[in-house]
């Protein structure tokens, strides 16, 4: 596969469309220099290795980062005087400052800023480092690379690494909860386990894995050669492992990892050991990454669509990521703010949330949920997009009600910002707020319902290809409906008052994020695996993976509804003996659920290495990504495609979505060019 990629790369190399390709950037030297660099020269000396962008340079720069943090602590403490600080050098202060300096030093070290630094300094930029596209060996996946397809795979693989880690933490939690009474870890460690579990899976898995899949397919789907800002794209990827490493390394912090859940409610979070700051700072990096990618998606989708690709000819995955990116850009700054508040409260005594000093405890929750409720949709809408792709192609039918599918996404974006306080029905906030928030929470189920019913109608009278991706899509329909129903129940204030913060909530959120988001991720990975690798996965193992996941998922999380309503709180290291039987059952099922993921990993790894080669379009999809080679050429298209119809015209005789017309564009297309959104052919 790798040599395929290399060939494709050389074939396409750089043609007249180079300027289009990097329309948002400036190319100072011909990209051919990049090819020379790739082929590798004589082995570099130690000094050259330490100077060249890469992990060696990152390593020593990170040490410099710690030194700088130390120096800064010393200077500030000197400057403010000895009365204020008992020590000029304080281990914890240095550690917290290092949480900022070391990641930035790492980014500088691997070359994330090289291009801009060279450009700013007026030196010749080195596009061989940062305008170079494509991966030519596995090592290229460990370098700063600006090809959206490389970045997509980097994102996806990194996210799955954190899925495994987060899942492992969940299995450890279930070991603790298998029996009442502490038998495995102490309460403090248990609190850390579920806090890191949730934080990793939210910030390092669900959100970025969608950014990864989107990164890979969106530019190809809209007929663009890359993202609008390829270097920003690379930088936003590399922020991600930093955030993940920070959250994991918090286990080594004095006092243990952060232990206030992923919600980090004050005043507990400002009262915990320093590990909590690893969350506060880690979220800044994950959030920054998220915002950068969202901006990139928005600009790419708005400005880089192929001729004829009006908004209403966009595949719904693109619509979904467009909607998600709007949410990310508007909402994510709020969680950044909430965590900066905590950081300042903890380190500098700002007392934002200390009622004794004029602070307001509930304010934190409002700011936090103003992000974290839209975040639920950030974690779900791209999955809706994936399901639309999979169901249309595998049912061999157009998506039912395409325009309503697109509008319902936008409705969710708007309504998603009006429901945040339903997380706070029992928080002690002003009682009247519950009324409007309950109404909007109930109403937001309407656009979601429209999507469910439209998918069902798409299945109707189709020709269903029940392969792994489709099974995950159908499994998603059932589990997500259940998660949606329990969500509507939670909108009902008196019921929410009883089950708020119980295992019912744990069940609901896992039906939405595991039964919802993760199922769509699996569907998407199976669906685009042939495109990404040029090889086919093992269908039999895929089906095993689906059935084990589906069965054990339901066996794990369905009983949690009952346990919660019966009175078991979440986030407890031990519980009343009357819950013992169900909890043991849940624990056993959860371990089997975890093991089921190994089937997936095995299937992916072996199929990538040695799966049978597949054609360019094994699913007979109409969207543009299936019209190019597998894996796609470095700049995606040898010819700029022209879009002449809707993306899901299955069953329409002679329908075409995109054509690869020769240079003179047919006269018919000029009329319905890219600037006329009404020209869509699928309504």
């Amino acid at each position: 596969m790798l040599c395929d990629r290399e060939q494709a790369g050389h074939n396409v190399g750089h043609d007249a469309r180079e300027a289009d390709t990097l329309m948002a950037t400036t190319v100072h030297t011909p990209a051919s220099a990049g090819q020379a660099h790739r082929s590798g020269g004589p082995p570099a000396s130690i000094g050259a290795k330490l100077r060249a962008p890469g992990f060696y340079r990152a390593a020593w720069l990170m040490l410099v980062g710690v030194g700088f943090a130390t120096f800064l602590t010393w200077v500030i403490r000197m400057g403010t005087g000895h009365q204020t600080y008992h020590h000029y050098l304080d281990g914890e202060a240095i550690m917290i400052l290092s949480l900022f300096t070391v990641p930035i030093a790492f980014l500088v070290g691997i070359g994330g800023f090289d291009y801009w630094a060279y450009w700013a300094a007026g030196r010749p930029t080195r596009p061989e480092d940062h305008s170079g596209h494509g991966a030519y060996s596995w090592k290229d996946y460990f370098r700063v690379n600006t090809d959206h397809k490389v970045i997509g795979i980097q994102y996806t693989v990194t996210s799955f690494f954190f899925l495994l880690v987060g899942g492992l933490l969940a299995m450890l939690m279930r070991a603790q909860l298998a029996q009442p009474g502490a038998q495995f870890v102490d309460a403090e460690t248990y609190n850390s386990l579920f806090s890191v579990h949730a934080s990793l899976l939210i910030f390092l898995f669900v959100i970025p894995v969608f950014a990864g899949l989107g990164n890979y397919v969106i530019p190809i789907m809209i007929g663009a050669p890359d993202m609008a800002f390829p270097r920003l794209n690379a930088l936003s990827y590399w922020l991600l492992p930093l955030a993940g490493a920070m959250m994991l390394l918090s286990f080594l912090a004095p006092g243990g990892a952060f232990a206030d859940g992923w919600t980090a409610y004050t005043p507990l979070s400002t009262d915990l050991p320093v590990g909590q700051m690893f969350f506060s700072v880690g979220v800044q990096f994950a959030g920054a990454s998220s915002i950068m990618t969202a901006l990139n998606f928005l600009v790419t989708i708005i400005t880089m669509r192929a001729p004829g690709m009006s908004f209403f000819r966009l595949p719904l995955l693109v619509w979904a990521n467009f909607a998600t990116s709007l949410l990310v850009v508007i909402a994510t700054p709020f969680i950044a703010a909430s965590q900066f508040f905590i950081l300042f409260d903890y380190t500098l005594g700002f007392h934002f949330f200390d009622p004794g000093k004029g602070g307001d405890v509930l304010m934190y929750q409002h700011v936090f949920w103003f992000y974290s409720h839209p975040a639920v949709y950030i974690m779900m809408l791209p999955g809706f997009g994936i399901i639309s792709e999979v169901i249309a192609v595998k049912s061999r039918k157009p998506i039912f009600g395409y325009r309503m599918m697109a509008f319902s996404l936008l409705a969710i974006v708007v309504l998603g910002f009006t429901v945040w306080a339903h997380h706070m029905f029992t928080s002690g906030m002003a009682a009247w707020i519950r009324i409007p928030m309950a109404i909007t929470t109930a109403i937001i189920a309407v656009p979601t319902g429209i999507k469910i019913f439209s998918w069902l109608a798409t299945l109707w009278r189709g020709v269903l290809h029940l392969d792994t991706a489709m099974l995950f899509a159908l499994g998603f329909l059932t589990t997500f409906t259940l998660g949606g129903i329990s969500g509507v129940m939670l909108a009902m204030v008196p019921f929410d008052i009883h089950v708020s913060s119980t295992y019912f909530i744990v069940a609901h959120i896992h039906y939405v994020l595991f039964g919802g988001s993760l199922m769509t991720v699996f569907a998407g990975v199976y669906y685009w695996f042939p495109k990404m690798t040029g090889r086919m996965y093992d269908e039999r193992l895929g089906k095993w993976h689906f059935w084990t996941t589906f069965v054990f998922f339901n066996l794990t999380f369905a009983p949690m509804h009952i346990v919660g309503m019966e009175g078991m709180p979440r986030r407890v290291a031990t519980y009343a003996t009357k819950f013992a039987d169900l909890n043991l059952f849940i624990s056993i099922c959860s371990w089997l659920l975890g093991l089921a993921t190994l089937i997936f990993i095995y299937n992916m790894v072996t199929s990538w290495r040695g799966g049978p080669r597949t054609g360019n379009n094994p699913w007979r999809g109409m969207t543009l990504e299936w019209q190019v080679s597998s894996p796609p050429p470095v700049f995606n298209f040898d010819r700029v495609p022209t879009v002449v119809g809707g993306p899901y015209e299955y069953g329409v005789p002679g329908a075409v979505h995109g054509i690869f017309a020769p240079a003179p564009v047919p006269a018919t297309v000029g009329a319905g060019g890219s600037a006329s959104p009404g020209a869509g052919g699928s309504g």
Partner: protein
Amino acid sequence: MPSRSAIVGTIVAALAAVAIGIWLSFEIHWFPVAATTQAHNTDRLYHVLVIASIPIFVLVVTVVLFSVWQFRMKPGEELKDGPPIHGNTRLEVFWTALPAALLLGLVSYSFVVLYDNEKKPAGVPEVQIGVIGQQFFWTFEYPRSVTGGAPIRSYELYLPEGDTVYFNMRSRDVIHAFWIPAFRLQEDVVPGITTHYRATLDRLGSYPVVCNLLCGSGHSLMRSVAHVVTPARFQLWLRSQTGKSSSVATASTGGASATASTSSPASLSTTLRSASSRDALRPGAGGS
């Protein structure tokens, strides 16, 4: 098109599934025993919600299973496409409007229940009880208006059956949540503000009191007991407590009824707090 018999059979099966689901929803033991009028209202709301949800869930699952059964690709159809149906405006309006109406109906009903649960009872005086949450135990305060004498503090909750109690909840440190599952009521206990809720007790018995918001390492052990007793016994208990309220307040000795709870929560709390204290673990904590 699928055959008529297949469709009819599926509809019958789906209706049967709905019936079984509704029957099951009454058979399943969802809730702990209900000890307040609020609990009965909430349980009824839940059953209405379940009954409204089951047909929707069955509908989705039925359509999925029916499609899998009837529309799955048969040998020879590898290259076949389905009919190009792009939508049906009438159908789309229907499945937008109907769920919206259903949801607004349900949420309106929930507001009725909420109003009933929270309204002040007419005529009857309320028993005002102070609740103090701190890491990791509860303290309950009975003011003069209740005791008729000196205020009382207790580590277990005693409540008179038949009366409406009004809890005034405060926190000494971080946020807790005062949850009594048998009452179906909870509210966060937030530093800096006093939160409230109201419970009308209608069943004798002892029920767990649970802290339901993560409050630190001892969170899962922050429990107490609520005893709902007859009004006569309640008065008896109040009188038995008034004499030694000062000693209870200092947590040095326990009364007869609260022996287990007077010493244990405080000592547990001390142990856990010292283990989790931020200053104890901070390197160079000298006093910054």
